[in-house]
Every structure is written in C-alpha cells, then in structure tokens.
C-alpha cells in the first residue's frame, strides 16, 4: 500500500507541475477581418488525444492563427492569419501528419 501511496503522490505532484498545454485556441472562431477560416472534415478523430494532435500540428504552422476541434462533427476549424494561405495539399498533409484522413475542405473569407 505504501508503494501505491508513493506513486499516487508522485503522480499528483507531476500533474500540478505540468501545465495543461492543449487548451483550444479561441482565435479560430474570432479571426481578424481579411483572414480565412478553414473547415476541415476529418476521419478518425475520436478522442481528446486526437484533438490534441491536430491542435499541435496545425498550431505549429506559421500561417495558422488558431485551431478549434469539433469532435461531435469530426471537424477542424482553422483560422489563418490575414494575408496567409494554405493550399488544399498543405492542409491534407497537416491532417495526415496528425495521423488522420481528410474528407473535405471548405474555405470562408472573413
């Protein structure tokens, strides 16, 4: 039982020390005028680890302002910075790199 206690305390300490780093970016839904909003329909996203992967991979791209994942509808909403763009192929590559498969892509100019 003491081993279990040690492990539990250790786990709790680490949980407090590591920030929750995967909050969704609100920017995707409050993008600036002149920006573009992508709605990417994706197959295979079923859990928060999937959403985390997509958020991280898209978030590292210089053209991306914010990412929002909608697990209910299997969609990724990506806000692009004003004047920046991602081609269909680039979006599909990012989805594949996250581990998932793109079904469709829609663009909306804001």
């Amino acid at each position: 039982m003491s081993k279990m206690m040690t492990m539990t305390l250790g786990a709790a300490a680490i949980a407090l020390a590591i920030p929750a780093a995967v909050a969704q970016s609100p920017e995707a839904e409050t993008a600036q005028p002149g920006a573009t909003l992508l709605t990417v329909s994706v197959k295979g996203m079923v859990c928060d680890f999937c959403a985390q992967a997509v958020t991280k991979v898209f978030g590292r791209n210089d053209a991306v302002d914010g990412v929002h994942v909608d697990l209910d509808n299997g969609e990724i909403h990506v806000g692009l910075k004003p004047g920046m763009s991602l081609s269909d192929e680039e979006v599909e590559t990012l989805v594949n790199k996250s581990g998932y498969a793109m079904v469709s892509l829609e663009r909306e100019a804001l």
Partner: protein
Amino acid sequence: MKMGFAAFGAASAVLLAVGPAEARPVSYPGGWTWMQMNNGDYSSLHVHYSPTFRDSIGIYSERNWGEDWHFTGVQYNRLVKRWNEKTSQANLYFKAAAGQADPFGPESAELAGFVGVAADWETRRWFTSYEARAYDVGSNQTARQAARVGIAPYIGDFGDLHTWLMLQVENQPESETPTTVTPLVRFFYNVQLLEIGYTPETEEFMLNWIIRF
C-alpha cells in the same frame, strides 16, 4: 524552475517506486508521453517521444513483483496500421524493448527484452483493445496478454472530462493467479488519462496514469 525540479524529483520517486499495458503508444510528431501502469503484480513506467505519428521511442522500466525481476531498457513502438473512419479509429501496433533485467536476489543482471503487439478499436462510445507481450528476462521467459472492453456513459467534446467504464481480462500463465478480471474507471481530461481499477481475484488495486505533452 523550482516547480521543474519538483516535477523531476517526483518523477524520479515514481520511477523508483514502480515499473506496463499501454494505450496509444505513439503520439503526434514532437509529442512526449508519460505512461505509468501499476497493479499488484507489476508496475511500469514508459516515457517516450514521437518523431512521427507512426513511431515513438523511449525508456521503459518494469518492476515485476510476481516474477521477481526489474527490467530497464529502451522501447520502440510502431503504428503498423491505422484505420480512420468517420466515427471510429482502429490501430495495430508493434512494440519491442531491449535492456537489462535485474533478478531480485543475488543473481547478476542479464540482457533482456520483449516484443509485443497491440490492437484497438474505438468510437466515442465504445472501446476495445488487445495486447500480447513475450518477455525474455535472462533465466525467465514469460508472456502476458490482456483484452479490454469499455463504454462511455456520456459523450463529451474536446476539453470535457470523459469517463469510461471498462473491463480488463489479463492472462499471465506464469502467475500465481493466471487469469484476472479487473473492472476499472478511466477518467480522461485534457492531456491526462487516469485509470483506477480493482482485481477481486488478487485483491489488488490498479492505478494507471498517462499524460501527453
């Protein structure tokens, strides 16, 4: 920085205290994962880095009280195949580790390792998985397999607290109690996954913790 040292100290303490069943042994490119598994027979820690969504490599340490050895080594995980569907995902993984086994007692350490396969299928409501491993820990060759089924009583979106009710059946032929059934609850919040279970046959608790960052 102080908090960083505290985390490192706590991590070291946990590593020394413990030593395996793993869900999703690969992450996104550039992602790190901490996987700690504990039950009455063995405890393990696996910390790995994923250069791609198909591969991860890291350290693996397992302390096996049921069979009296402690293994420390390097583990490689490979996502062999993923099936992405609109409402489901299925995966097939290969795992291998090589390192050193220290038997409890006066015997000296020996080269050791294991190979394993794992598969899972899940939707946002249902979960199933299977894993089998074969160990060679010097004078001791052993195998272990486990299967799980789970259901989520409610569906949450990204960032909500997700709860799963699961049942695990584990078989270790060399163990005193070769087959055990463990009901468990999985809590999944943000980047952290915690599992708490109890095995009536052995009267032991299960405590698993995974964090991805």
